[in-house]
């Protein structure tokens, strides 16, 4: 069984093409199914579904705005918290730690990604939520209470706690991608910067962070993608209340969490369909966010090339 050299390439090409097509077909099939399943709700509510925050399964009235708001706000907040931390951790591990220690710490960070989200959820419910209620919220209220974001009563469960959990969950993703990006910078440039008399801080700024802007953006997008879709951990600590509130202490609900919460026991067709509609919207939101981040990356790489 020896394949001739001339055919080898062709077989590999056909095989690879097949597998990439499978991925594309899967995606199309999922979108198609979502469309089909959400048709009933789409016919009933149309686009006003996106603009209404009224969600009442008893009366079969549905609107997704509160869930879209919850998803976007928790994801962005978690990115805001996790982004800087992850970038600093990546720089610290790569540039400041001795090689052996670096690889050990690297493994530790990556192990966070291996913890199942239900464990994060339970930990959040039993330990983080009381901690937020007793320490973090009073602290924020005392010093930043004049901002509407930090007003109102905190029960420990809510948008802030959900964002904190999400931040912890996306740190390993962002950190490991950032580390790869930083590692791809040639040593020559770092040495050149140091040779020109740069301090270590200046070297990190000039030779590492500035040229890897698009890479860092890519890492952040990956992290954001995980935050947008995270379900179980969020559902356990967000309070699952479809309301739009300016306070971070208030409870909220995300698109993924409402699907997880209500799909299994939904018994009206319209309710099921509305949940699928939310799934479709989650898809759209993720797509828009990704597109937005990609544009930043493209613009930047074009700028740096010219």
């Amino acid at each position, binding site marked *: 069984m020896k394949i001739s050299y001339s055919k080898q390439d062709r077989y590999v090409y056909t095989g690879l093409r097949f597998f990439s097509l499978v991925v594309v077909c899967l995606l199309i099939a999922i979108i198609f199914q979502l469309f089909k399943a959400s048709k009933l709700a789409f016919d009933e509510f149309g686009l006003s579904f996106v603009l209404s925050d*009224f*969600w*009442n*399964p*008893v*009366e079969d009235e549905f609107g997704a705005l509160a869930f879209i708001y919850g998803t976007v706000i928790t994801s962005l907040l978690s990115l805001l918290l996790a982004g800087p931390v992850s970038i600093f951790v990546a720089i610290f591990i790569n540039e400041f730690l001795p090689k052996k220690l670096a690889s050990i710490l690297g493994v530790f960070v990556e192990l966070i990604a291996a913890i199942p989200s239900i464990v994060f*959820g339970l930990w959040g*419910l*039993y330990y983080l*939520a*009381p901690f937020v*209620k007793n320490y973090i919220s009073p602290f924020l209220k005392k010093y930043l209470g004049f901002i509407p974001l930090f007003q109102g*009563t905190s*029960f*420990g*469960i*809510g948008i802030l706690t959900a964002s904190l959990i999400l931040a912890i969950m996306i740190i390993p993703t962002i950190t490991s991608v950032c580390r790869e990006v930083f590692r791809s910078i040639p040593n020559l440039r770092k040495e050149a910067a140091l040779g020109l008399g740069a301090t270590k801080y200046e070297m990190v700024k000039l030779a590492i962070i500035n040229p890897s802007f698009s890479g860092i953006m890519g890492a952040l997008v990956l992290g954001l993608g995980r935050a947008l879709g995270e379900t179980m951990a969020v*559902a*356990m600590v967000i*309070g*699952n*209340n479809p309301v739009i509130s300016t306070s971070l202490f208030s*409870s909220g*609900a995300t698109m993924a*969490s409402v699907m*997880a*919460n*209500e799909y*299994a*026991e*939904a*018994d009206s067709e319209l309710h099921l369909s509305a949940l699928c509609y939310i799934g479709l919207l989650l898809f759209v939101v993720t797509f828009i966010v990704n597109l937005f981040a990609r544009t930043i990356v493209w613009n930047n790489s074009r700028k740096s090339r010219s």
Partner: protein
Amino acid sequence: MKSLLILSLLGFSINCFAVLKINGAGASFPYAIYSKWISEYSKVNKDIQINYQSIGSGGGIRQLIKETVDFAATDAPMKKKDKKKAKWPVLHIPTVLGAVVVAYNGDSIGKDLKISGSVLADIFLGKITKWNDKAIKGLNPKRNLPDQEILVVRRADSSGTTSVFSSYLSDVSQEWKSKIGAGKSLRWPTGIGAKGNEGVTALVKQTEYAIGYIDLAHAMKNNIYTVSLKNKDGKFVKASVETISSSAKSYQASADDFTASLINKEGSDSYPISAFTYFLLPIKEKDSKLSEIHNFFNWSLSDGQKYAKDLYYAPLPKNVADKVLKKIKGL
């Protein structure tokens, strides 16, 4: 080598023929007792292998309609719409009773708080917001109640527990009935949503001034403060296996239907938020599989009932069980 393979294949296929597999799916609330029944029944009758998946009442009904399972289980009776979709008429068979317990954080309130149905509805409507409200004080005159906001904790996921609880509130409060209604998931006027009975239990236990509703098993196992609820006869009753069973004592089943509500029933020691949980059995031509299912249900309603109490489910009162058994026999 080859003969070994054939032999093992043969053995496997014989095994397949000998064991009859029965698939069921549905409610997660009675999962503990059903899995106990299944494991005990497999000791009695070794030729039957029953598999029950607790995917939720709604999922169980959908699978029964699609005929991917042999029987289903649900907490709330099937809706008319769903009944029409099924190919065969479906019989509701009550299996055990469950209850919804109102739990609260008693750190500064103390145990055995007394609550009436209308006060409970007002708390969950957000009309009574403080623990030292006149209405609560009136029911507990000797108690020193704190001047603190009540935190309402409720289920976030759709569940039979919510359905039973909201049916009760609709029964005792006209305002609840017209504004909110009953269902597995609601548009809640106040409070925060926790996931699952365990989520509500955790929140109520760790948050001072919280009140919520959970099933009896979670309340008993977690040693949480529970209220004494005023029943139809005006007595304050705590939820227990006995008081729940007692609410079904005067239960009048019509000839072929066991789906009448158990909410707020008469009887001085009846706990008002009690409910049956059901097996759903398609009524069709009897084959060997169906008669094995009948046998299993017969066993569950007679010998199986003694396992209920240890798992915090209330067994069916004898008169109800007899009626149901007679009905199954008549099929």
